[in-house]
């Protein structure tokens, strides 16, 4: 058999009901690249519509791709595909970084398909070709930290583990799967729990072969490293620097003279970090101060991150005071992994402060983050804290909780900003203790169950972008207007697409961004300046399509979409242009299959269209426009005295958004009326069989 290049060539299938473990050839799936693409293909082929997330018939696919384990910058991402219990049991993905993905590849696997349900708690042990289903009765009930330690005590410290906590075991809809202490995939923990699968441990010693030469890989890698910026591909520093023409104080390139990893021994100064200095790339992003404010500098030991990532966006903190609340003094996380735990303290912190920035806020955040990750609770992109706030501030909890339960909750601790409250919060939700625990059901369910007011679905404060599926905005219309709005419409959960926000947040002036937008999407009009929006145009549809297609591509290859695509660079001599063909160049080199940028994008378009087809099949309607692609009123009704498309508002217009949907559907080749894939589109993408099945079910647009 010819050696597979890029892909390991094998997919692992584990049936927990029958306890059978089989191997399949990856070649069957490579039209779908890997990761997310493989997941959708398996779900299309094997999981019938009507299946619910926790049914044994549901499957969960842990996918990596041809780039995983190759050392290409930021390529150790695991894509997890299954039905989403929080979002009407539709297809969805969760993602985690860390080292698990690369290790799975080194063990010789491109994906793990888990099906059925074990009769008692188990964990999966993978050491190269040796795969066994192990008894997890000793681990079941433990937090994710102890579970990971238990698996490593058996497999060895070099093993990498993906585990669920009690929230997942108890099939709390909002549960995570976590690896490496801080890399969590939100939304599918309960699916693992429903299968009685506590953890997967993996250890590998096999090579990843590639089509090209080592020298060619090093050259391309150098080129990529010369273009790479800081986290989110921000390409200007956050403070003025001699080398930089531009700066932006929300840039994640936070390094500057006088800013340290203050808790390192000795402290490490981040310094100037000019773009040509490859040895200081890992110092560019001091994410602790970005996420927590200046207070975090003294508590930052180092920056951590995923295998093969030169950027390192997870701040690793040591806050001794956290121990006073019965948790570890050590914590690591990034972005919403910090802001969600912090915001559970609805009433602020012990010193009376609210928001980030004080020592008490930092202590509470570290306590909360430890508990959230150990119990294994997911935040639905921080919607859980908004749900909690809505219910608490509106007196709903007092009404819906039985009096005995309500009185047993130490609200005085919450009011006083005492982090001891957090133990109550996480335990109750993660163990499904009482009515209060329904906060973990998901926003749509809990808002209906507790009869939230109309304002919850329509006011900007609550950020519920899609009121039908119950997910929040995630770089939506506040980011490039219609482009962000379209991106937030297309998935079945909060969009985890960063292609567009990485671009708009790069820190470059609008004129520079517009010039680059013109090169990539056909016209500078693809991009509007913040709070100065214009009506929809076809270039914005190109921008939205490109952003999604690349996001899907990254989750399939796998690459981190918090860095890629490298659309911009820190270099004035390149007019700040990045290299959008890099993914295709790496693909050709690694797999030995020559593909242009356009050809690889077409593969990703296939994957995303299959996602849409799955959604049509699962919802049983072609009317995506009205039944799925629904936007909350606040997007259109904010700033009541101001007209849309006037300077100084991010308000959108309903009619224009319908035009935007039409242009996007057309750009994808979908039906312009309904937004469902057409036969012509499916056949163009080599998925005539999908068209046949949809047609047989009456789900193909006329």
């Amino acid at each position, binding site marked *: 058999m010819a050696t597979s290049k890029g892909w390991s060539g094998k997919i692992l299938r584990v049936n927990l009901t029958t306890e059978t473990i089989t191997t399949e050839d990856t070649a069957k799936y490579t039209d779908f690249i890997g990761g997310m693409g493989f997941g959708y293909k398996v779900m299309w082929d094997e999981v019938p519509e009507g299946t619910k997330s926790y049914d044994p018939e549901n499957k969960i696919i842990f996918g990596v791709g041809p780039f995983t384990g190759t050392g290409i910058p930021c390529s150790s991402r695991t894509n997890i595909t299954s039905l989403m219990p929080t979002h009407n049991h539709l297809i969805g993905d969760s993602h985690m970084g860390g080292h698990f993905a690369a290790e799975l590849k080194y063990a010789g696997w491109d994906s793990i398909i888990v099906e059925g349900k074990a009769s008692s708690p188990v964990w999966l042990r993978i050491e190269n070709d040796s795969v066994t289903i192990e008894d997890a009765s000793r681990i079941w009930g433990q937090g994710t930290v102890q579970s990971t330690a238990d698996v490593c005590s058996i497999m060895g410290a070099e093993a990498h583990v993906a585990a669920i906590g009690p929230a997942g075991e108890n099939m709390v809809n909002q549960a995570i799967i976590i690896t490496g202490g801080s890399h969590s995939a939100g939304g599918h923990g309960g699916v693992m729990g429903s299968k009685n699968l506590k953890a997967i441990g993996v250890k590998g010693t096999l090579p990843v072969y590639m089509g090209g030469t080592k020298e060619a890989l090093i050259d391309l890698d150098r080129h990529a490293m010369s273009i790479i910026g800081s986290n989110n591909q921000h390409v200007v520093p956050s*403070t*003025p*620097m*001699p*080398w*930089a*023409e*531009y700066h*932006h*104080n*929300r840039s994640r390139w936070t390094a*500057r*003279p*006088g800013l340290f990893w203050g808790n390192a021994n000795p402290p490490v100064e981040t310094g*100037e970090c*000019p773009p040509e200095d490859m040895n200081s790339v890992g110092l560019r992003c001091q994410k602790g101060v970005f996420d927590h404010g200046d207070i975090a500098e003294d508590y930052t030991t180092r920056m951590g991150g995923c295998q093969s990532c030169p950027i390192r966006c997870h701040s690793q903190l040591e806050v001794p005071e956290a121990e006073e609340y019965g948790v570890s003094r050590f914590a690591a996380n990034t*972005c*919403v992994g910090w*802001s969600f735990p912090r915001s559970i303290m609805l009433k602020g912190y012990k010193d009376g402060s609210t*928001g980030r920035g004080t020592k008490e806020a930092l202590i509470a955040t570290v306590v909360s983050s430890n508990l959230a990750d150990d119990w294994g609770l997911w935040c639905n*992109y*921080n919607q859980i804290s908004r749900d909690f706030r809505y219910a608490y501030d509106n007196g709903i909890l007092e009404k819906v909780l039985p009096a005995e339960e309500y009185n047993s909750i130490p609200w005085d601790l919450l009011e006083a900003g005492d982090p001891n409250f957090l133990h109550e919060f996480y335990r109750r939700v993660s163990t499904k203790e009482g009515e209060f625990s329904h906060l973990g059901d998901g926003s749509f369910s809990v808002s209906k169950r507790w009869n939230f007011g109309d304002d919850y679905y329509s006011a900007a404060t609550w950020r519920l972008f899609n009121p039908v599926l119950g997910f929040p905005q995630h770089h939506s219309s*506040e980011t490039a207007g219609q482009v962000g709005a379209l991106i937030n419409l297309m998935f079945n959960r909060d969009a985890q697409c960063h292609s567009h926000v990485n671009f708009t947040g790069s820190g470059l*002036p*609008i004129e520079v961004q517009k010039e680059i937008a013109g090169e990539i999407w056909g016209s500078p009009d693809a991009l509007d*300046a*913040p*709070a*100065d929006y214009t009506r929809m145009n076809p270039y914005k549809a190109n921008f939205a399509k490109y952003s999604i297609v690349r996001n899907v591509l990254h989750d399939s290859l796998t690459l981190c979409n918090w860095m890629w695509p490298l659309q911009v660079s820190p270099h*004035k001599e390149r007019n700040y242009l990045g290299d959008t063909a890099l993914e295709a160049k790496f693909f050709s080199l690694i797999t030995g299959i020559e593909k242009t940028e356009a050809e690889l994008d077409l593969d990703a378009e296939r994957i995303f269209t299959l996602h849409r087809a799955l959604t049509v099949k699962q919802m049983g309607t072609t009317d995506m426009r009205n039944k799925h692609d629904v936007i909350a009123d606040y997007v259109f009704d904010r700033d009541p005295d*101001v007209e849309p498309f006037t*300077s*100084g*508002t*991010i308000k959108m217009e309903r009619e224009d958004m319908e035009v935007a949907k039409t242009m996007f559907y057309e750009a994808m080749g979908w039906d312009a009326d309904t937004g469902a894939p057409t036969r012509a589109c499916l056949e163009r993408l080599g998925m005539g069989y999908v068209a046949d099945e949809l047609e047989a079910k009456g789900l193909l647009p006329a």
Partner: protein
Amino acid sequence: MAKDQALTPKARIAQRIRSQSTHGQFVTVKELTEAPFTFTEEAALANLEAMAADEKYMDIQWISGQKAKYLYSNQTMTDNYARLHVHVKEQNLVAMVAEAVRHDSSVYPRVTSVKAFRYSPYNLEQELLDDVLKKIQESDEFQDIQVITASTGAKYLYSNQFLEPRRANALVELREVVDDE
């Protein structure tokens, strides 16, 4: 013989300017008359004049402050930074803040966080910063510089020559509230 002594006088001057620029520092003519240099002021100026006509030294630039003229290399220090650094060097704080705000409002365009002036290269203590802001607000010359307080309490500045108040306000709220995750 030390390696840099083998260089021509012009090359030595350029080397010094480029290296200082990398670290955000200007060079003055006076410095070229001090160790390790041995130029007289006239000789230094003559060399600089010759360099201005020499393609190899096109990156060497003059910038004028209120107190002196400075040299930098725009190969290793951007022109934007040099304009800002003149004010830092001469501690011309009111003009420094006002120009930074106008630059932000006109070029990006964006609102300027007051807090940004606490960090390098400005490094202003809060008390001094408050005093600078007061002077800006009192000065006829800087009437375009406006202060906005976000709903979070954070303070921002903008120039109404380049940004309308409603847009500035929207940008502040976007930054402070909407994009906060």
